[in-house]
């Protein structure tokens, strides 16, 4: 009973926050709503006994990704009237996507996958099951290849981002820290006889 109540709480709040992301005028508020939405999604993970995934969701998405988002948004000057101008331009495409999604949802719900009894209800894990260990064991044995490929793709993206943005200006002044640290008194101070 308590679990259902918490599920409804988290699910309801995440839908509310999702609506807030789309509907709020102020982009900063939208970002805050998105963060709130991630929190509630993490709560849903906790209800499924997946505490590792829940914490990682907060650590990566809220703690890192959204900070960069916010950084970018803070620098923008948001012009609301300009955004309104483009509203009609995007309406057909957006409407089409909405209609397609709607048809998909209706089709999926009528196939009988969601009827009572068709859903597999999983038992709760025992307290001594360590989720982090289980995920690690599967990730580094069964799915090792996929894991390594993902890692290499991320590394390539990292190097690519640096290569694209580095300019290597020769005329720019820069500081040589070891030179600064190794400076002696004699290099800077000179006694002038008056």
């Amino acid at each position, binding site marked *: 009973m308590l679990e259902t109540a918490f599920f409804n709480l988290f699910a309801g709040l995440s839908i509310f926050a999702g609506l807030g992301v789309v509907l709020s005028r102020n982009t900063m*508020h939208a970002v*805050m709503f998105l963060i709130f939405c991630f929190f509630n999604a993490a709560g849903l993970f906790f209800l499924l006994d997946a505490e590792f995934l829940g914490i990682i969701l907060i650590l990566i998405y809220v703690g890192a990704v959204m900070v960069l988002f916010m*950084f970018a948004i803070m620098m923008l000057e948001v012009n609301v009237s300009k955004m309104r101008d483009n509203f009609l331009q995007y309406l057909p495409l957006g409407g089409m996507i909405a209609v397609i999604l709607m048809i998909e949802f209706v089709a999926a719900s009528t196939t009988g996958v969601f009827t009572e009894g068709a859903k597999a209800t999983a038992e709760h894990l025992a307290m001594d099951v360590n989720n982090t260990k289980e995920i690690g064991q599967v990730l580094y044995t069964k799915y090792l290849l996929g894991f390594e490929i993902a890692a290499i793709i991320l590394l390539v993206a990292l190097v690519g981002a640096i290569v694209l943005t580095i300019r290597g200006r020769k005329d720019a002044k820069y500081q040589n*820290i070891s030179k600064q640290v190794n400076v002696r008194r004699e290099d800077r101070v000179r006694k002038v006889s008056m």
Partner: protein
Amino acid sequence: MSGLDMAIQGGIWALEILAIAVPIALSVAYITYFERRIIGWIQVRKGCNRVGPAGLLQPLADGLKLVLKETIIPARANKMLFIGAPLLSLMPALVAFAVVPFGETSLFGVWETPHIMAISNLNVGLLYVMAISSLSVYGVLMAGWASNSKYPIMGSIRSTCQMISYEISMGFGLVTVMMLAGSLNLTDIVHAQAGGILHWYMIPLFPMLIVFFISGCAETGRTPFDLTETEELVSGYYTEYSGMWFATFSLAEYGAMIMISLLTSILFLGGWYAPIPALDIIPGTVWLLGKSAFLIFVFIWFRATFPRYRYDQMMRLGWKIFLPWTLGWIFVVGVFIYTPGLDGIIDFWLAWR
């Protein structure tokens, strides 16, 4: 579970939370007092000694002054986020204490098995602390942006850069602890260090202890890294805050400082164990709080000793020195664990083999 049981359980939780939150608020007040006295002592002057005996009532007087001050909200500020920002920075600082084990007690033999003195003994305690402390960035960012003023926004951008940079080396430092302890549970990590000072992780992970503590210093924006609240920025992201909202920011800062000290003692300095097993007759909580108090003293000592870092020096230290060091140490520990011949050395600290 009946309604009465749930009410009792709720009451117990509320008491547990109060038993941690109230001492933290009090110790924050008195850390400010000791900070002023210790810096005064180091700089050969008195420090605060006027209010009450030896100035002991000074923190209360300061608190009263801050409560009575008018709260000013700038006209062009974003009101909701301006008021929300101090709360957003205080919340993670306090919530992180939920998983800290303050010791192990059998209540003078009343309970048969020793219980852990923590609100929640999470399996993923270490990750929880990392996740929660990474949230404190938002308070700073929001404060800077919502103030709608140029110095706060510059201060908050600097602060955020600093926090993101040092979080990474802190996280990698923690990975080495996990590799030795084989667990993310803070209690298990302390148990893995039982048996005297030689078993503490500060011996095999000494460079990580240094990196972790200095990164913690940068995370909380304490002095060598307080370039986010310098005079040139008119005290950075909280320029526009006054009265109680300002006090909330400093409460969060000092709370984070206590948290870093507790974590360093738990992860590297053997938690609630005494340096010599014979001294374990003194309750573990005393040891843990003593170690943390010493580390808080080190924080204050830093403040009285070091000049401030320049922005580029701070970034260089985080990315070019700490990050390679921590990555290198992860590699070294990994090689030691899995190379036949070398694993004999590290087995002394390895809890899981």
